[in-house]
């Protein structure tokens, strides 16, 4: 700690070190100065005192009857802090073994170290101090008893289970310096880059080849990279001493790190003369080391004995452990953590080869840190929830594999020969788990971090509604990699006869600093997301769906299109996408588009809702007109009612025309068209994020298939009135001919809270939305509230881009699903559905 040269050297200077992440138990009688001591050395939230807890549960810090409840509260608070990885100091007398035992057990349950600091003051001093405190009304006998307990404790407190017991007496108490010692596992300040190397098992020659492939020259990388060994350097292979010599040299020189493997652990025991069963290649190591220089053997034993269970690296973003490590154990220290890191999470059972069955912890892993490990030989390393096993069984004739971090590149060299026969065949790639999703990934109030829209809150009740839709109606979540966001209209137009007009859209984007927008024809069909793979094998590799399917087309709430025709639709779209595979260097794609006609998907809605209203109007209004005409014929004054009835009859006819335009018969896929307007993602890139709209539209225009419909568009320079007028004229012509309208988008993705696009719908089309007679009530309809819709559009857009980015980055399914689920949940928010 800091030096204090100016101050006089205190009579008794003491320096003690405690773990930076630990439970610290203060031990001392009432009045020994624990609270003052704690205040001086620790932060106010780090210290939990029994008096404070007594106050919490009894409104009186000295109410001894509340003591059992107070300690229950204290243990709860301490447990919560330890679970969250916070240094915690307990300020209670803890002079009795029982009290300390509970705290030690609590620390061990959370896999943190626990130190005791004993303040050993004379009983008389404590009594004197208590006497000056009016709130302490217990007599001196209490202190005397506590003091007796403490004296009894001091003899054997070192056997309580504390890592260390620091006893302070007299002036030491006031002059001690406390140093926080980082955990041995904590190398978060080392940011790499790293080359993490899998199980070597004495294959010295392959290790040398791999190191030079990685660019190391005599154990040193010219770009200053650091090698990290996942352990199991020894046993089975031909040259364990050679491997040890190389790794020890690199660790010594600071160019490598190494964690302990189960084979090192056992070899050390054997070398130290402990009785171990000589099996699994231990004999080879012992024989080889038997021929080595004894000094080297001593050094190697010390080296292996000093290896620790795991390392946290790169600000906690990377964890290396021999057999992997679940998230609650990252940075923790206990026998349990070490056993997990060395042997994995075993079930206690063994398989038909007599080897332990391992619990598939990686399938449940939800941590943010990448976990890289070895231990279980596999044929191909595969990412499972941001974890990867690098043991590719070089000693069994497989390969020696390294992972470049942060590049996420795998580098491997083949075994020169089979050095050792495996007890069981190497495992293939881990079975894709159909239920890789857990309820914890989606349930409750959630905060989803997004790259392009900050943290987005998903409310519990919305998640509950989405859970039902997702479970009952949506396609397999492995296909459901994206859901399109909602889109807002522009500010309401004041122009006579119009509710929406392009002028407001252009104005909005110009005000946001956008210079160029694209106006895309808005197709009146059903929004469709097409996930396509070049082959069923590519689908299995990328999406993990192994049922022979090569794609899926789904609606904006994730439901499949067309049941039985899906296969045909997917195959047609895959064929149509042929030019894109090579162009984008990908074997899968996600396309955003509109599926036409509207009636193909929505016929039941059209019949049940729109045509129904048309039928009722068609049946009723002529009778109303006839009855009013008869009354007028009798001389009754029904003039204005009759006029209105006639206008409504005309509106109803226009309404029927409006929906009928988007209905045409299809037979099978004959008549069905998909009009794509964006390539959302492909291998390695979220193109929706990084490419401007003209790139998408130009590329998609190259698709040539009867199944593909064009998306007409015009580009507008917002600083040119002529350019704007031309686009307005284009929109007017298109909507007059029955078109739905257009979508206006900034060509380049803008920064900040700018809408990704707004829709401008045509006059006649809006009858479908606002009813046949909406033109009679424009004044009322203009009072519509857009704020919520616009905010939702931004949030859903951010979630959508996040899902695509996670997909393109190869993040695990649950991470993609979390963002997609968020979009669906938001859609259950009550927002005027007509906007």
């Amino acid at each position: 700690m800091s030096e204090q040269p100016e101050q006089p050297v205190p009579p008794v200077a003491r320096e003690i070190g405690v773990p930076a992440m630990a439970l610290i138990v203060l031990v001392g009688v009432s009045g020994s100065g624990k609270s003052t001591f704690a205040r001086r050395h620790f932060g106010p939230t780090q210290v939990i005192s029994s008096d404070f807890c007594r106050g919490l549960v009894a409104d009186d810090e000295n109410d001894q009857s509340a003591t059992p409840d107070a300690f229950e509260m204290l243990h709860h608070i301490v447990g919560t802090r330890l679970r969250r990885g916070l240094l915690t100091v307990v300020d209670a007398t803890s002079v009795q073994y029982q009290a300390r035992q509970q705290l030690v057990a609590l620390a061990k349950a959370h896999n943190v170290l626990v130190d005791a600091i004993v303040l050993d003051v004379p009983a008389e001093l404590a009594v004197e101090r208590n006497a000056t405190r009016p709130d302490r009304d217990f007599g001196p006998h209490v202190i005397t008893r506590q003091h007796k307990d403490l004296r009894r404790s001091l003899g054997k407190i070192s056997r309580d289970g504390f890592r260390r017991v620091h006893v302070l007496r007299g002036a030491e108490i006031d002059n001690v310096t406390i140093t926080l010692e980082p955990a041995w596992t904590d190398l978060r300040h080392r940011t790499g880059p790293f080359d993490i190397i899998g199980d070597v098992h004495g294959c010295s020659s392959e290790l040398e080849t791999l190191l030079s492939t990685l660019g190391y020259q005599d154990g040193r990388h010219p770009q200053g990279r650091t090698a990290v060994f996942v352990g199991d350097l020894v046993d089975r292979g031909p040259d364990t001493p050679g491997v040890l010599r190389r790794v020890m040299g690199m660790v010594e020189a600071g160019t490598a790190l190494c964690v302990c493997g189960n084979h090192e652990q056992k070899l050390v025991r054997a070398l130290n003369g402990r009785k171990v069963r000589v099996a699994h290649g231990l004999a080879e190591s012992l024989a080889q080391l038997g021929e080595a220089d004894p000094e080297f053997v001593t050094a190697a034993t010390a080296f292996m004995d000093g290896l620790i269970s795991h390392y946290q690296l790169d600000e906690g973003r990377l964890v290396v452990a021999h057999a992997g490590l679940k998230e609650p154990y990252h940075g923790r220290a206990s026998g349990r953590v070490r056993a997990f890191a060395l042997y994995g999470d075993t079930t206690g059972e063994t398989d038909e080869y007599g080897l332990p069955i391992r619990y598939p912890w990686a399938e449940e892993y939800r941590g943010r840190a990448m976990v890289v490990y070895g231990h279980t030989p596999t044929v191909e390393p595969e990412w499972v929830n941001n974890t990867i096993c690098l043991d590719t069984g070089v000693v069994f004739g497989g390969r020696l594999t390294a992972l470049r971090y942060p590049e996420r590149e795998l580098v491997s060299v083949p075994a020169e020969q089979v050095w050792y026969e495996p007890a069981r065949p190497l495992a293939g790639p881990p079975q894709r788990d159909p239920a890789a999703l857990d309820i914890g990934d989606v349930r409750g109030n959630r905060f989803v971090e997004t790259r392009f829209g900050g943290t987005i809150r998903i409310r519990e009740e919305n998640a509950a509604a989405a859970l039902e839709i997702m479970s009952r109606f949506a396609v397999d979540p492995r296909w459901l990699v994206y859901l399109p966001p909602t889109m807002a209209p522009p500010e309401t137009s004041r122009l006579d006869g119009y509710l929406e007009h392009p002028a407001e859209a252009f104005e909005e984007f110009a005000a946001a600093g956008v210079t160029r927008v694209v106006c895309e024809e808005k197709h009146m069909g059903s929004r469709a997301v097409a996930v396509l793979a070049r082959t069923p094998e590519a689908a299995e590799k990328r999406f993990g769906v192994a049922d022979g399917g090569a794609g899926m087309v789904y609606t904006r709430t994730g439901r499949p299109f067309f049941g039985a025709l899906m296969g045909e639709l997917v195959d047609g779209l895959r064929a149509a996408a042929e030019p894109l595979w090579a162009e984008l260097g990908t074997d899968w794609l996600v396309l955003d588009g509109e599926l036409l006609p509207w009636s193909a998907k929505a016929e039941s809605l059209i019949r049940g809702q729109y045509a129904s209203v048309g039928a009722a109007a068609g049946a009723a209004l002529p009778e109303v007109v006839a009855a009013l005409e008869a009354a007028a014929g009798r001389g009754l004054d029904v003039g204005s009612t009759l006029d209105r009835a006639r206008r409504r009859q005309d509106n109803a006819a226009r309404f029927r025309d409006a929906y009928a335009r988007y209905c045409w018969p299809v037979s099978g896929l004959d008549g069905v068209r998909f009009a794509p307007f964006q390539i959302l993602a492909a291998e390695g890139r979220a193109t929706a994020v990084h490419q401007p709209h003209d790139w998408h539209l130009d590329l998609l225009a190259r698709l040539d298939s009867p199944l593909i419909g064009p998306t007409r568009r015009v580009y507008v320079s917002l600083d040119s009135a002529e350019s704007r007028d031309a686009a307005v004229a284009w929109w007017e012509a298109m909507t007059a001919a029955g078109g739905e309208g257009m979508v206006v988008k900034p060509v380049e993705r803008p920064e900040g809270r700018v809408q990704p696009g707004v829709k401008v719908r045509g006059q006649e089309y809006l009858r479908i939305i606002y009813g046949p007679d909406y033109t009679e009530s424009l004044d009322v309809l203009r009072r519509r509230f857009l704020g919520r819709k616009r905010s939702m559009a931004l949030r859903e857009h951010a979630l959508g881009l996040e899902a695509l980015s996670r997909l393109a980055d190869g993040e695990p399914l649950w991470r993609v699903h979390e963002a997609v689920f968020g979009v669906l949940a938001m859609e259950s928010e009550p927002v005027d559905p007509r906007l």
Partner: protein
Amino acid sequence: MLLTISTTHRPATDLGFLLHKHPDKVQEFSHSFGTAQVFYPEAGDERCTAALLLDVDPIRLVRSRGASSPDFSLGQYVNDRPYAASSLLASALAEVFRTARAGRCAARQELAERAIPLEIFLPALPCRGGAELAHRFFEPLGWQVEAVAVPLDESFPEWGDSRYVRLTLRGEVRLADALNHLYVLLPVLDDAKHYWVASDEVDKLIRAGEGWLAAHPARALITRRYLTRRTALTREALARLAEIGDDLEDALEPPIEEETPEASTEAEPLTGDPTGERLAGEAAAASPRPTPLNLLRREAVLAALDDVGARTVIDLGCGSGQLVGALLANRAITKIAGVDVSAHALTLAARKLKLDRMPEARRDRLDLFQGSLTYTDIRFAGFDAAVLMEVVEHLDPPRLPALERVVFGAAKPGHVIVTTPNAEYNVRYETLTGMRHPDHRFEWTRAEFRDWASAVAARYGYRVAYRPVGDDDPELGSPTQMAIFTAGDDDVRAA
């Protein structure tokens, strides 16, 4: 929307006295949902016609009521309410002709008390259940019924008929009765109401139905529909999702099995649910009043649980909680969890089980929560037995492996009891076309069920036995099939 009432009683203009509306005047009445007008297109001695015209502005209707209106179509601007004869018209009629409906007429009391020749015309009457239902409802009341279906859209003849009929009723009926018939039966035919059904609805029904409803052969259906209950907020959230998902409201009904409704108006009329009718049909298919299949199924599951000695049970897909209720009644079962993906179903279950009034000792044995068979869930683990009663057939086949993993792989109960329809037996249901429930994604034959069950058992280390549920037809098997899985002693793990 329009309603005309004509009479050929002489002098026909006496209709003006009976209705308390002068034939030579146009009268306006203001309502919260629009304006009603009464006028007479014809008023001669031989024939007189009164017209009730209700002008509903759907936009104002939406704006004034907001989205929480119970009749979902009111939440839409695109709405048939301005044109069709619905509960809005019934309400307007009740108010505008209040005195006439009570059968009072100071000027012509004798006339008000006797049957006169009447003709009632509704150009667009929504009729859920088809024109046949209009006949079934009005004919027993002394009407001669002419109901012509209105085509949906003449430009799309393949779409067929709409749910509207052009209805003409002719008969010798007391005017007050005629008005009450319309007041009750318009919303019943429409099967939707524009206001929340409150407890006073029962009184209203009894008053309006005085003298004719009790003897009506379709009184059970009329009562159930009249007292329609639409529920809860979560449903609205779902409805919003359904709307953008291009789905009709019907598809949203959670696959909850209601108790088969008894043929009595007293039997809890408030539990009426659209699914009830269909199930009534299912049960009616077999001959004279057998035990309903859902009851047999529950008994079979309870017996199977008893046979395997389960003390803790999780009902995955508990619906409205019938099995959970039966399990609670058995004190040998110490822990019960009811899980459903539908929040609406859980609300129903909580209500039916009277969760808020349940004694603590019983309440402590029960846990009801929302969960999904798509996601592994730690809360599913640790039970002696899991029940999947009529659940698997509600999943798309590609989603079954996830269910298998969630239940057999992750939750790993000692026993799993699965029931599902036997598709072979469907030929026994004369009225059935297609599958037994609109939400069923498949129905298996016995061989298909056994193929699936034995593969699952092998993959996850279970043994499996089968039992019939219900009448065991020698050729077709039983209507419901059941598999009982038992975890093997040698706990084989998934490959």
